[in-house]
């Protein structure tokens, strides 16, 4: 039952032009749009798509690592991996809550993931074939995610930016545990070193794809940047990631599988080859090695959990029934979608 104070409604309803001018002024000042502000429908739709896709990625991203928790080689490594997977679940929940402030329900979001109407990051459609992949994912995949997410802390939509700040604080552990795992294996046997190299070879190109298609094939980037939703282009972030990763690979003692990768003195940056963009689009379309398996697993978890959700609701309703006949209905009013306190 919260009431939110916002500017008084004008006596004369504001014209569309006035609303848009005010919205643009907020963006122009690099200020944040908050859920109760007026926003163009296209801005809202873009954000729903982007934040939901981000949330789905965190949730689906639990699968490739979760499957190794039982097989991690020591109690220490199991505890670390479990803690990381738990964090990813939390990230998904922060981001779903942020999406819900835009007027979509959690149930709709889950259904759009399961039906394939909304996407998640293609990286999670690649399989985790060896334990070394647990290190490589932390180092490269979480590393690429950090590159993407740090600038998003200043994205123009308030709830999204605040979720990103929480997430970025937690990601550092993810990357470091991965790198430390790989360092440990590199100090091991020849066979272990070969496992690390083989894993890096498989994940390097899909990691570069995480930044999305090249700028000239990314028609939405310009609008997203004009709205302050994105602050850097895909290619800029990809470059930043490569430049950060090369010295880390050197220190680790692995090679990155790109014959074109070379330092460019003039640019003060690395030149590097392009990922196979045909493969990228193919995986986006659903033809990656694990697309069907990931979505089927999520659907099974959702279906298998139905009785738990129903039982918990029935129990809550019967408890409320004993104390007050009206509280069950007032509870459901409170989950009003425009209320930002989605987690309260």
């Amino acid at each position, binding site marked *: 039952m919260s009431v939110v104070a916002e500017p008084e409604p004008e006596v004369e309803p504001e014209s569309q032009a006035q609303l848009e001018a005010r919205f643009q002024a907020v963006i122009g000042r690099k200020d944040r749009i908050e859920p109760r502000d007026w926003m163009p429908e296209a801005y809202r739709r873009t954000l729903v798509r982007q934040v939901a896709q981000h949330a789905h990625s965190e949730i689906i991203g639990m699968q490739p690592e979760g499957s190794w928790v039982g097989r991690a080689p020591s109690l220490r490594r199991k505890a670390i991996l479990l803690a990381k997977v738990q964090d990813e679940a939390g990230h998904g929940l922060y981001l779903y809550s942020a999406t819900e402030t835009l007027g979509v329900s959690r149930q709709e979001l889950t259904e759009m993931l399961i039906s394939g109407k909304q996407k998640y990051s293609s990286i999670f459609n690649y399989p985790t074939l060896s334990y070394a992949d647990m290190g490589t994912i932390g180092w490269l995949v979480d590393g690429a995610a950090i590159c993407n997410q740090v600038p998003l802390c200043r994205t123009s939509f308030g709830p999204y930016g605040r979720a990103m700040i929480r997430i970025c604080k937690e990601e550092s552990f993810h*990357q470091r545990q991965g790198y430390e795992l790989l360092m440990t294996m590199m100090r091991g046997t020849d066979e272990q070193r070969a496992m690390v190299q083989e894993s890096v070879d498989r994940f390097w190109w899909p990691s570069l794809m995480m930044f999305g298609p090249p700028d000239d094939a990314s028609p939405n980037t310009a609008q997203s940047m004009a709205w302050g939703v994105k602050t850097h282009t895909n290619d800029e972030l990809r470059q930043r990631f490569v430049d950060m990763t090369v010295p880390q690979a050197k220190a680790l003692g692995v090679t990155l599988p790109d014959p074109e990768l070379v330092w460019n003195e003039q640019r003060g940056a690395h030149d590097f080859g392009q990922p196979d963009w045909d493969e990228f689009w193919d995986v986006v379309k659903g033809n990656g090695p694990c697309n069907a398996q990931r979505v089927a697993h999520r659907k099974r978890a959702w279906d298998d959990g139905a009785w738990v959700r129903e039982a918990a609701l029935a129990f809550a309703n019967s408890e409320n029934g004993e104390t007050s006949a009206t509280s069950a209905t007032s509870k459901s009013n409170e989950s009003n979608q425009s209320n930002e306190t989605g987690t309260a």
Partner: protein
Amino acid sequence: MTGQVSGEWPLYEVFVRGKRGLNHVHVGSLHAPDDELAVRHARDVYTRRNEGVSIWVVRSSAITASSPDEKDPLFAPSGDKVYRHPTFYDIPADVPHM
């Protein structure tokens, strides 16, 4: 919750967003006869010097809080999970951007 109020006005908790982009933060409480007036009063009591751009009020009775007795069962278990912190991992200082 918005039924008849008699006697003392109910207590409300007040949350203020300092500026766009920040979370609403709890600033205190006040009494008011209803939700609408709680917002007005919150404005007068808590934002006389430009402290905020948005106010939330919520009936104190609608807040469910953890009890101090639960402090250990709720929060102590994370104490021994040091591996959740980045500093748990030894990475040589000359490895950049980590």
